[in-house]
């Protein structure tokens, strides 16, 4: 990205710029009627101008809100920009949300204008018109099935644009003037947070914020005008709108809209995006498809596939990171690329992907490695709506599967005493729309945004997200204690099924452990040591030793993480029964109910912290048939070796 765009502080200005310098290049490819219909930048500029003028003709004024509801369609993108051009505020809403959910945002922002895709959306709005008196004009793009609609508040796209043309002819300077009026501090849009409880909050983002972030990332990844993105998620999701509105407007790359929901996969294969992003669920689904389809393949293919996937698993990631690899491995990988990886990427439509992000939550490490190993440059991205998405991005060649990488240029990271991640960034949101109190909670006086995520910076300066803050505690020595993190680390060993990490307001971290009866059972048989049932197996010394090794491995790893060096597991015991939803120890979805367990096993907790070597426990269990009985046992408690914290290596 050589050209200097600093003088363009709003999207409409950027659009004008692109129309001028790369007017002929494709801005939007829209698969319609079987072919990719291409809209050049100048086309889009023209379209935006027409819509803007049309809206103005219909009485759209600066500061008015425009609800945008529908799939990724050129005219809707244009409508967003048109609203911005008029100094208005586009409010993209989820096209798949039921009419009831549309009521609040429309009432809240007293939205007067709506630009929607088709009959379906129109019907929803008409249904809620009574509750939304503010709504006085609905423009729709596809007139199919709209023949018998008589409501005078409806305007179809053709009318809108022709109105625009007339208005433009009448006031030739109007549009340019409006665009010129805009400044970076103006509001570029209101995006609803993926609201978990209550009404979704409307996050207000300014032009400057979005443009700046888009800029930073464009520089970071070296995005070019020749890049292509497939816009296949709801444009109301901040992620989608950043990728398919903010970034292209900055870098001038091309957005591609699939033909229909069913054809997304095939359309992706056709267009071959170079810049790709997906929430974990999409990548998981893709992977599932791959494995299912491979199951149906011939024996030979399956063998080839398995073999080369092993090769890839061994060296793929490194090769992608440009690390030195043995000649033979390199050869094998090259072979694999020819036979499996490239065809696979091709089949997934990722044959040309240069940069791919997994956004949203974290993706499971194995999947992450899978995609990287077949040569797709997939990277973790940490961001929130409030920060115009980009906070941290993994850098090419320095990808670790358990971090989200270092901060993006311009972003400052900080942590509260409770390890809560604080972000200060040019991409910071202005406010929660009409919700000062929430705004105050989220953004403090110095402009730090409280993410609600707990984490820390690792030795290489990568951000590591531990957990939601409310689950984070601390040891008596004041150092961080992140139970979930510890538990996950331990659970990554096949022998360990469940873990309860203790240590909140204690001197040291300890753990209750559930062994995985199968894995350990197999292990035991190989050592031909006899056992009768779970409780017995769990109480064997050999098993304790086995588990201790695991715990000590974890400890040694923790020792390298300054933040967590102190929460190494000092003592542990193996529970004599499996934690069980029936006994209320796990949720039905097999999540640990920590508080409940701690209360239930209070005696054990005391024992483990009072340094005893064994502890007697009796507790009531509910059997399959609903009868209740009590089992009692003497549990051994063992110490695990801990390691002195290793001084943080300076990252190269």
């Amino acid at each position, binding site marked *: 990205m050589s050209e200097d765009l600093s003088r363009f502080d709003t999207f409409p200005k950027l659009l004008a710029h692109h129309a001028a310098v790369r007017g002929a290049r494709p801005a939007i490819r829209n698969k319609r009627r079987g072919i990719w219909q291409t809209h050049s930048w100048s086309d889009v500029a023209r379209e935006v101008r027409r819509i803007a003028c049309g809206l103005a003709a219909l009485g759209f004024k600066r500061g008015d809100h425009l609800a945008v509801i529908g799939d990724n369609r050129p005219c809707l993108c244009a409508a967003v920009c048109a609203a911005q051009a008029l100094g208005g505020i586009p409010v993209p809403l989820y096209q798949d949300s039921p009419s009831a959910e549309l009521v609040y945002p429309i009432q809240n922002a007293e939205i007067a204008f709506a630009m929607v895709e088709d009959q379906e959306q129109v019907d929803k709005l008409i249904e809620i018109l009574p509750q939304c008196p503010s709504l006085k004009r609905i423009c729709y793009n596809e007139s199919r099935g709209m023949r018998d609609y008589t409501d005078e508040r409806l305007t179809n796209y053709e009318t809108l644009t022709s109105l625009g043309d007339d208005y433009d002819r009448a006031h030739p300077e109007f549009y340019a003037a409006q665009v010129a009026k805009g400044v970076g501090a103006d509001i570029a849009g209101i995006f609803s947070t993926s609201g978990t409880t209550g009404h979704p909050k409307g996050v207000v983002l300014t032009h400057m914020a979005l443009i700046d972030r888009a800029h930073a990332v464009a520089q970071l990844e070296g995005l070019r005008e020749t890049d292509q993105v497939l816009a296949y998620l709801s444009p109301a999701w901040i992620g989608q709108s950043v990728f398919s509105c903010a970034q292209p407007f900055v870098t001038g790359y091309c957005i591609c809209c699939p033909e229909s929901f069913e054809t997304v996969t095939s359309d992706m294969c*056709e267009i071959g995006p170079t810049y790709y992003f997906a929430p974990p669920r999409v990548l998981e689904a893709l992977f599932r498809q*791959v494995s299912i389809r491979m199951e149906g393949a011939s024996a030979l293919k399956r063998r080839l596939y398995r073999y080369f996937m092993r090769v890839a698993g061994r060296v793929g990631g490194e090769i992608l990171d440009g690390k030195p690899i043995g000649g033979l491995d390199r050869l094998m990988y090259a072979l694999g690329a020819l036979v499996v990886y490239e*065809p696979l990427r091709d089949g997934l439509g990722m044959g040309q992907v240069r940069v791919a992000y997994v956004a949203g939550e974290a993706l499971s490490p194995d999947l992450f490695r899978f995609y990287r190993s077949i040569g797709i440059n997939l990277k973790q991205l940490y961001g929130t709506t409030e920060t115009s998405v980009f906070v941290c991005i993994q850098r090419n060649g320095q990808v670790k599967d358990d971090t989200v990488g270092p901060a993006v240029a311009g972003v400052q990271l900080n942590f509260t005493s409770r390890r809560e991640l604080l972000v200060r960034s040019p991409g910071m949101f202005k406010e929660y729309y009409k919700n000062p109190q929430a705004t105050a909670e989220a953004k403090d006086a110095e402009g730090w945004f409280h993410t609600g995520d707990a984490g820390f910076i690792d030795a290489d300066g990568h951000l590591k997200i531990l957990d939601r803050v409310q689950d984070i505690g601390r040891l008596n020595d004041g150092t961080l204690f992140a139970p979930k993190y510890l538990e996950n680390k331990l659970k990554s060993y096949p022998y360990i099924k469940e873990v309860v990490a203790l240590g909140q307001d204690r001197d040291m971290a300890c753990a209750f452990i559930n062994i995985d009866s199968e894995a350990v059972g197999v292990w035991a048989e190989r050592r031909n040591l006899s056992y009768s049932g779970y409780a017995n197996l769990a109480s064997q010394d050999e098993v304790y030793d086995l588990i201790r090794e695991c715990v000590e491995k974890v400890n040694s790893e923790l020792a390298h993480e300054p933040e967590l060096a102190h929460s190494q597991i000092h003592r542990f015991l193996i529970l004599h029964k499996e934690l069980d939803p029936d006994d209320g120890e796990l949720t039905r979805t097999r999540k640990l109910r920590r508080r409940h367990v701690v209360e239930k096993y209070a005696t054990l907790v005391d024992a483990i912290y009072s340094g005893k070597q064994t502890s007697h426990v009796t507790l009531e269990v509910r059997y399959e048939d609903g009868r209740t009985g009590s089992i009692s046992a003497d549990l051994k408690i063992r110490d695990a070796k801990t390691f002195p914290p290793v001084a943080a290596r300076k990252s190269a």
Partner: protein
Amino acid sequence: MLYRQTGQFKTTYAADQQIFPLRQDRIAMALLLAIAFVAVPLIGTTYWLTAILIPFLILSLAAIGLNILTGYAGQLSLGTAAFMAIGAFITYNFILRMPWLGAIPSIILAGLCAAGVGLAFGLPSVRIKGFYLAVATLACQFFVLWVLQRVDWLKNYSTSGVITAQTIEIFGYAFDSPASKYLLTLSVVAVMALAAKNMMRGRTGRAFMAVRDMDVAASVIGIRIMRAKLLAFAISSFYCAVAGALYTYMYLLTVEPEAFRLELSFRVLFMIIIGGVGSILGSFLGAAFITLLPILLNRGSEWISGIFNVDISHATVSHFESIIFGSLIIIFLIVEPQGLARLWQIAKEKMRRWPFPY
């Protein structure tokens, strides 16, 4: 496996409707043509050119002709050889009696005459279907041959009833060397194959297939069944006639009507059954198969007789040949009615899907 399809998107219908939408296919085709036009004439031995490649190409053309009629329009014909004969003899007479006309125009005119005859014998197809039609085409076969045998004028009163092909000259260049003959044949076949493909992928072909698949529906849509059928007959006859002319002038050189017996019709029919009914590519595959198999058999028999030093009479070999052909037809009809073309298509699909099964 070799296909890389991502990024091959189409922004116009023209691009979407081209014969080879995939880049890799276009490259492969270009290579094939390059080899056929440049490499082969350079390295090809006379035997290969005159005894294998030329007849293969010519029969492919005939097969295309029959495929248009039988494969696309669904009208079974057993009269292919007759139309080839017409092509051969009419061309002969044009070149003989109107030398100023030039070779190519003569061939084209011959083709048109054949088309006319085709129309005449296609007329019954308006009223009748299936076997009846097949019989009608048989009638054509016998009638035409009879005429050619009886009317000596057509054979320029040669006592032996055999005609000798004149050397073809185009703009003063005489096509008499094997390589030149091969190139001429190849060019003609290539051009006509392309033309056929164009017709079959467009309006004409759709009309034909509509008539083939469901004639009532076709008529309801406004397709004139009669017109479509007759057109199919005409085009098909034209192709066969040109093939016949080439068969005489580029391959046999001396011909008697007997050269175009019913057996030849059957051979061409077998080509499209084995190669693939309703496929231009299939016509080539089938022709290749049917022309190569006898050669292989002969080689094989010589080899065997060489080993066990028993001599296998040519009669026996040819009997075996007909047995093998016969059984192949039956096998293909049972196992893969769509013929080699279909198999090729499946293989290609697999390549595209690789490593996925579907």
